[in-house]
């Protein structure tokens, strides 16, 4: 039994978390009985084959998808007790999202995309812009402030998306296949950026990925198979990595 009063350094805690989708009358189990704790400043990678439920787990942790069973606490707040507005405010102020397809607003330029969460929160433009500039400088995009997303490369768009996720100074950054649409060099840059966010800024980063090079940069690896968590740890040797990955390869 997990205590509902977790240690102070835990950001996310789940207990027996399950998610079932009903599609055209058929129940599909996305994941089942996931129990874990993610501390501050940790970079956690979630791996697993397609359809194993890893993206769904990320969405449930981020409060954009409700769990079917079990509980989830964010900084001690039980998400199932929050209404839509409270969940929206939680996302707006504490959680940053990064997607595989970047999902920048195409009609807004770089600076407007990054300031968006702050402006939504009622922060005046004059205060929002310096914060956005700081984040864009960090992701090395401060030179393309007035460019529209369509004028940027994939890697640049993802950097802007990360800046948008970081601008609110979130407790948790959730990244769903952040390198999936990028070439290996750009993917490596983004991975390092996310690792720095966790290690230097002590913000928790959860990355869903298929890429072992991304996962190898993480502090911890979780492997999901058919919705069940079958590995949780940090493979330190090649053998341990192989053990974890073999499971995946076997499937």
């Amino acid at each position, binding site marked *: 039994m997990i205590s509902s009063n977790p240690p102070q350094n835990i950001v996310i805690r789940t207990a027996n978390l399950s998610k079932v989708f009903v599609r055209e009358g058929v129940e599909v189990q996305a994941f089942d009985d996931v129990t874990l704790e993610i501390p501050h400043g940790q970079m956690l990678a979630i791996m697993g084959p397609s359809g194993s439920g890893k993206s769904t787990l990320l969405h449930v942790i981020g409060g954009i998808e409700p769990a079917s069973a079990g509980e989830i606490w964010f900084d001690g707040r039980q998400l199932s007790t929050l209404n839509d507005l409270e969940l929206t405010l939680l996302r707006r102020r504490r959680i940053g999202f990064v997607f595989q397809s970047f999902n920048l607003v*195409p009609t807004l330029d770089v600076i*407007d995309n990054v300031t968006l969460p702050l402006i939504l929160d009622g922060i005046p433009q004059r205060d929002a812009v310096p914060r956005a500039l700081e984040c864009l400088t960090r992701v090395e995009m401060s030179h393309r402030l007035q460019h529209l997303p369509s004028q940027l490369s994939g890697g640049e768009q993802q950097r802007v998306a990360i800046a948008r996720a970081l601008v609110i100074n979130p407790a948790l950054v959730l990244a769903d296949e952040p390198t999936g649409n990028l070439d290996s060099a750009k993917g490596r840059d983004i991975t390092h950026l996310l690792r720095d966010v966790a290690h230097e800024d002590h913000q928790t980063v959860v990355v869903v990925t298929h890429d072992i090079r991304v996962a190898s940069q993480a502090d911890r690896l979780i492997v999901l198979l058919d919705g069940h968590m079958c590995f949780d740890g940090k493979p330190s040797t090649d053998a341990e990595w192989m053990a974890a990955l073999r499971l995946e390869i076997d499937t």
Partner: protein
Amino acid sequence: MIPWRFSWNNVRQRPLRTLLTILSIAGGVAAVVAVLQSAAATRGQLDSLHQTLASRVAMEVVTDDTSAFSLEDAANVTDQPGVHSAIPVFRVFAKILAGSEEARGLAIGVDLEQYREIRDFEIVSGRPYLATGEVCLEASVAERLNVTVGDEVRLGARGVPWLLPKKVVGILKPLGIGAVEETASVFMTLADGAILGKAPRKITSLQIVLESETEPDRVAAQIRTRLPQNLIVVKAASAAEMARPTEEIINVGLNVAALLSVISAIFIVVNTFQISVAERQRQLALLRIVGATTEQVRKSMYREAFVFGAVGTLLGIIMGIAGSSFVAQGVQDIFGFVGTVKVAIQPRAILAGLVFGPVITLLSVWQPARQACAAAPLAVLKSTSGPRRGFPFRRSIQTSIALLALAILMFTCNWLDIFPKWTSILGVTLVQIACLLFLPSLIKPGTTLLFAPLRRISTIEARLGQQQLLDNFGRTSLTVAVLFVVSSISISIGNTTLILANDVTSWLDRTLSSDFLLRASSPRVDMSETDILPDTLEPRLAAIPGITFIDRISFTVASVDGVAATLLVRQLEGYESLPIDLLDGDPDEVREKLMAGEIVLGSVLAHRIQGKPGDVFRMEISGISHEVRVAGVAKEYTAGGLMIIMNSESAQQLFPIQPPQVYGIRTVRSATAEVGEELRSIARNQGLIFQSLADLRELVQRLVLGLTNRLWMILILALVIAAFAIVNTLTMNVLEQTRHLGVLRVVGMSRFQVFRMFLLQALVLGLLSMIPAVIVGVLMAFLITASFRGVSEQGVTFTLYPTFLSYYVACGIILSLSAAALPAIRAGRLKPLEAIHEE
């Protein structure tokens, strides 16, 4: 060929979109059918009125002093080439007594078979009279006197000391709308009529019917040469001519209504198809990627459009027929027709609907289909909001300026009577098209201006909303255009109707200075053939305490400068302020000149004869003519404005004037109620019509209220139809931006913020349309007032109605916001995760 299944699946998957498309087409077709149906019915009613007023009588031979004459004096008239027939008639005002009941009216002595040639009627009971001593009574008179076939009545006339007993052998009912305004109450043989009129074997009029396509003026001139000195030929079509101004105003209303319905319908259908096709651009691009040719895609779109067009057209025709009674009743109420008119199915209206629906549907799909097929499929798939094309601003502004210049030229020529009057309608259409072409240039500065204050309230929502509207420039422009067209035309019609209604009310206030009116019968449109009041009435009125003045009012058919008109004679010396709504001339000066024998011209008559104060014209009544000077020009709605006003004393010195037909009675204020009761009792006993000023005012107010209520219903209905455009546009914005809305929700935009973003868009769309619509609508109302003959001739001056405009704009904005509610709620309810994955 792309299989039907593809189209069918689209319909099934987007039932709301399909319904909206079909409803847009149906709404457009319904509007066209309803307006054409009701216009045809109203015009039919007008034609009937016109025909009846004009009768088939082209002219009549009468004496120059309105006395009777011998038929032999005009015997050779029938031999004139071009004359079809000449019907002798004896007319005399008579008193009809049946037991204790009494009625007054025109008695006509005529051969009933011959009378059929000039008037339509039917014998509702009994038979036509055949011999002396037999009469037929008009149905309403028989009912009032409680007389049936076989009863006896007694007839009396001025100067006949005894009453003549007659046997009622038939009840006769005039047919046609105008026929009920024929005040003849009793019909008898020509000989009996002459005896009643104390002129045995004589007639009062020889009514002449011409062969078809005969030139009346030429025949009249020939007849004049054959007549003795005391007989004159007068045109008999004065009533019809006098109904022309009213007819012209009605035609203006119907034409503008037809214009409104056609332009609105076109824009609504075009807007719907633009959006419907834009929504499916990704699907169409996919089809092309998997091998469909642009020709196949285009054909498939036309095929779908044709099916929608066919279903929408059939639905629209049914809706149009159902709605036409409502529209027709509205038009007829507005223009004061009496009685409900059934709207028969008009084949032309159905045919117009059958052509309009499919044609406008196929034309509407042409541009979006061309655009969709021209875009590179891969580019469409990569873009989330479809291909963008630059708008040719410069060309559109240049065309707009050219059209405006042409419209100004047209209005000027129309005003100067160089162009025919229908060109005013063309002018209004040109102004509309010019403004529509100019409108896209206002979108960007307009949205910037309107969103600026909104950004202070809702920074990000306003910003994103503005961005989205500008990003979908074509759609935004089209939506603004739909609302603009409907609103500007509605505002111009509304403002013009209010101008006319208030003009009539204020004219009545100025000219009705008597507390009570007593008249012998209801007046005709041209005020001619109104019964005279009994001689015994005036002494009886004079004996009533509290009456300060009796104005003896009479109407006589006259002509000025060859134009038929009605002479209104009043005792103007009895009024402290002149009871004339003067348009030209100082009231005190005009009063003095009227006393000196000058005349005041009604505004329409003044316009027809180009008369102004100081001008001298030849005026003729019953063959007696004098030169008269014009003292002033007055607004007149009586007899369609074809009116001459003279003071009683001077009129009687110059012309043979009819005895009083109306008494205008003024009272001391403290005795008004008692006098009113007394007069009401006299009217009841003597079969007269009693009207108090309060009654008349209430009647007019009720008419104006009914008119404005119905006007509001029509205008709001038009706005509701136009609001579909906003529903369309915002729904498309939601559909197209689903993924981005999902992102916004994920990064923290609340449902309410999403909802508010769409409300702000609707508010700005509403304002973007309403502000120019108010300006153009008011301008068009001004142009209609100034340049449409029939309106301008009445001397109607343009007035702005700020309250009407504010209410209309408020209704427009409320409807815009309401139209946004559905898409806004839909956007707010989007699930962020599903929205993000939407392709």
